[in-house]
């Protein structure tokens, strides 16, 4: 069980190291879905493995053992996990659950706040133009998602650049990108090791919208120049501290990708990624199996004769 648990945790770290590079190899829509699915699996399997380890220790408390059907003494002598690593595992599980709860609640509150702000606005389709000098554009999550663009930004762009901007934001709404980003953020809250992978997913989300915009206007280079233009316009207005929190993705990566030929779908890379996920799940399954066996073995002889 200890070996399986250690392998499982190593698999998670391995995934976290590989995922950002793997994301660049895939078409952005595929990268978004696979990396976020991988993050969710890794976050869940990490918590699961640590919880099983912790329970080999928690299960030895007499009042817990009384609830179950096992003997604390038998469990103590059988358990391959010493008390202190199990206790640490328990603390990590608690921390992870607390962190995801706090992040989730704060994001929910922010969602409500954003929706309240957009309620009752005059929208052309889902486009809201805000009378403001500062150049800015963003979209809010579906359902009832809105594209919000300032008049200052519209003024600073030419017609073709405006078409890029609107097509990019439309893609965000159409593919529910805000929700993908929120999911990625939650996995990073569960396990900080997954932070680089979550950032890579956020960049993939922006790349996805960039590719959709490039297809809509039929000009990849135009999308790249529009991106740089908007970023430069914003630099003059946005406070440097605000830059950190904004989810613009990695601009350099996006511009380089747009100047390169369009991404191809690589079925082999996708198949390899899915195979890797399955492989990563094996240690967690082994932990589950051996954990169950451990508690069954420690069962009191009287237990199970309920009939």
């Amino acid at each position: 069980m200890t070996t399986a648990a250690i392998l499982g945790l190593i698999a998670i770290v391995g995934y976290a190291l590989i995922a950002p590079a793997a994301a660049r190899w895939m078409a952005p829509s595929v990268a978004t879905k696979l990396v976020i699915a991988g993050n969710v699996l890794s976050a869940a399997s990490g918590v699961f493995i640590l919880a099983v380890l912790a329970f080999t220790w928690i299960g030895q408390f007499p009042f817990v053992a009384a609830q179950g059907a096992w003997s604390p003494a038998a469990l103590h002598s059988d358990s391959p996990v010493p008390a202190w690593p199990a206790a640490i595992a328990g603390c990590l599980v608690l921390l992870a659950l607390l962190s995801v709860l706090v992040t989730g609640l704060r994001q929910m509150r922010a969602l409500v706040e954003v929706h309240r702000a957009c309620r009752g606005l005059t929208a052309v389709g889902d486009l809201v133009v805000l009378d403001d000098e500062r150049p800015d554009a963003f979209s809010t999550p579906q359902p009832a998602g809105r594209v919000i663009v300032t008049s200052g930004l519209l003024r600073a762009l030419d017609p073709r650049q405006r078409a890029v901007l609107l097509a990019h934001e439309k893609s965000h709404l159409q593919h529910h990108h805000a929700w993908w980003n929120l999911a990625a953020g939650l996995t990073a809250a569960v396990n900080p090791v997954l932070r680089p992978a979550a950032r890579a997913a956020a960049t993939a989300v922006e790349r996805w919208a960039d590719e959709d915009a490039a297809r809509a206007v039929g000009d990849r280079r135009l999308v790249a120049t529009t991106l740089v233009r908007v970023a430069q316009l914003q630099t003059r207005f946005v406070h440097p501290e605000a830059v950190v929190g904004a989810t613009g993705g990695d601009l350099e990566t996006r511009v380089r990708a747009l100047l390169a030929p369009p991404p191809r779908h690589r079925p082999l890379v996708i198949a390899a990624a899915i195979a890797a996920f399955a492989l990563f799940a094996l240690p967690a399954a082994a932990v589950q199996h051996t954990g169950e066996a451990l508690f069954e073995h420690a069962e009191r002889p009287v237990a199970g004769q309920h009939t």
Partner: protein
Amino acid sequence: MSRGRGDLEQQVFAALAADGGAMTTSDVRDALGGELAYTTVMTVLGRMAAKGLATRQRVGRSYAYTAVVDSAEVAAHQLHRLLDARGDRAAVLTRFARGLSAEESQLLVDLLQDDE
């Protein structure tokens, strides 16, 4: 370039809002790059006026249109707070681009030039 009806309406509205003032149908057509048929732009503007998205006044034999940009004060105030969003509020928004440092900006300009 093919565009849906809703997309076209957004483009026209964006052009009107960018200008801020009153625009005739040919002004709007020029502002959209001049590739659309006059009658197409006229139809879209007429529909927007009917929906209350634009106001119009007579100029000679045709109309000049002005975009109705939301002036609901409370909503506008809340939206301004979204513009300044940080942390969780920023996390629920997908932003087109963010500001750049001087070095980043130079790097991107170089990238675009190399590509030419």
